[in-house]
């Protein structure tokens, strides 16, 4: 096995370009170490922990910039994220154990592109963008177009995610992330539902965004339910209708964690709960 520990993004990308599919990037290692022990060993291991300038949480004027090597624990401990980006904070707070949160990075969670990835549905509802570098140069892509399938992203085999850019939600925005897992935060989600909602005045929905995790090949938005809510006053019947709509839009599969039918029930239930929480907190 070849091993590299590059100190610049350019070096890292040229190594990835050379080794392609045969290489693996390692940051926190919480996923890849398990793969290397029980599944496959890559021909080339690229440790990016020395790219220390990729670890930052930077509130710029236009958006919040988060470096790919920022740990989940750093997100959880950040006051701005806790207050303004509550949906993302919820996900970071419910992310496995302290041991894992100290090591796992936001970049790893995104680049891994698991449909159940904890921060992904919340980031979709924040309309975050991925910034990455390939041999062809730097790109900025909305996360919704970044995810291509389970474990597949626009990075391909040679791209390096350097960070994300998250627009500030409106001042009154309500963010909620709910997960259903058998063993609580330690477990992979059966279903996750994220909502980011802004209200006009007391209960008229200005904009609703609903993100679903683990119910399709990529994390997804429930666009139909979002449109249903747009401009309307929230009440219980409307919440019920939106929750049923989200369950219909979901594209779950049956696997050892849950059946597709069960996952749709959970989408409905969590969407109802998330919208109700957002509504009651207006």
């Amino acid at each position, binding site marked *: *096995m070849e*091993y590299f*520990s590059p100190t610049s993004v350019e070096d890292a990308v040229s190594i990835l370009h050379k080794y392609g599919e045969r290489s693996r990037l*390692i940051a*926190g*290692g*919480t996923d890849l*170490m*398990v793969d*290397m*022990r*029980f599944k496959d*060993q890559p021909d080339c*291991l690229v*440790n990016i*922990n020395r790219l220390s300038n990729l670890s930052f949480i930077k509130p710029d004027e236009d958006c919040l910039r988060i470096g790919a090597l920022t740990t989940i*624990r750093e997100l959880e401990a950040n006051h701005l994220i806790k207050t303004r980006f509550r949906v993302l904070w919820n996900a970071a707070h419910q992310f*496995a*154990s*302290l*041991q*894992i949160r*100290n*090591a796992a990075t936001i970049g790893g969670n995104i680049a891994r592109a698991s449909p159940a990835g904890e921060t992904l549905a919340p980031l979709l509802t924040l309309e975050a963008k991925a910034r990455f570098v390939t041999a062809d140069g730097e790109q900025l892509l909305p996360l919704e177009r970044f995810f291509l399938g389970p474990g597949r992203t626009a990075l391909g085999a040679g791209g390096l995610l350097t960070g994300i850019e998250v627009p500030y939600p409106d001042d009154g925005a309500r963010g909620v992330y709910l997960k259903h897992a058998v063993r*609580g*935060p*330690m477990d992979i989600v059966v279903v996750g539902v994220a909502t980011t909602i802004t209200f006009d005045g007391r209960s008229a929905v200005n904009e609703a965004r609903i993100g679903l995790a683990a119910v399709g090949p990529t994390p997804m938005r429930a666009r139909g339910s979002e449109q249903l809510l747009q401009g309307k006053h929230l009440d219980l019947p409307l919440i019920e209708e939106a929750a049923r709509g989200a369950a219909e839009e979901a594209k779950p599969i049956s696997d050892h964690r849950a059946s597709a039918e069960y996952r749709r029930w959970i989408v409905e239930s969590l969407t109802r709960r998330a919208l109700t929480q957002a509504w009651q907190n207006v």
Partner: protein
Amino acid sequence: MIEIALNVNGKEHHASLQPYLSLMDFLRDMLGYKGVKVCCSTGECGACTVYMNGKLVNSCVTLAAAADSGEITTVEGLASNGKLHPVQIAFIETGASQCGYCTPGFIMSAKVLLDEHPNPTVDDIKDVISGNICRCTGYTKIIEAIQLAASIQLAEQVYGD
């Protein structure tokens, strides 16, 4: 093979190792720190918990190479001048070690909590040990031990050792 240099429990080590080696396997098999326990090897049970540069991590899912130029503390490094850490004393006093296999990991997590919250609530304790699994299911005594450790630590601060 790659070369790394690191500090474990205050002692400098240089080693030549395979790049894919986990910190857990490195600490146990190459340096002999057997207080780092092997259990799930997937980052779920916390038996292999150590501090890397002051942070609580699962050494089974940490690359040994990532510890290059770093500082590691294992359970063997908690006692100072032959005196056990309050968390260790409390685990003995309350009988919180049952089969004992998960104990080093629990002790490492508990110490991190007490460093930050000298007087933790039961919920704080449950939060910090959520990444550690006890197969004897003896959580009640473990929680009691951590509460006792907090009292010992506070008493030491007030009355001295």
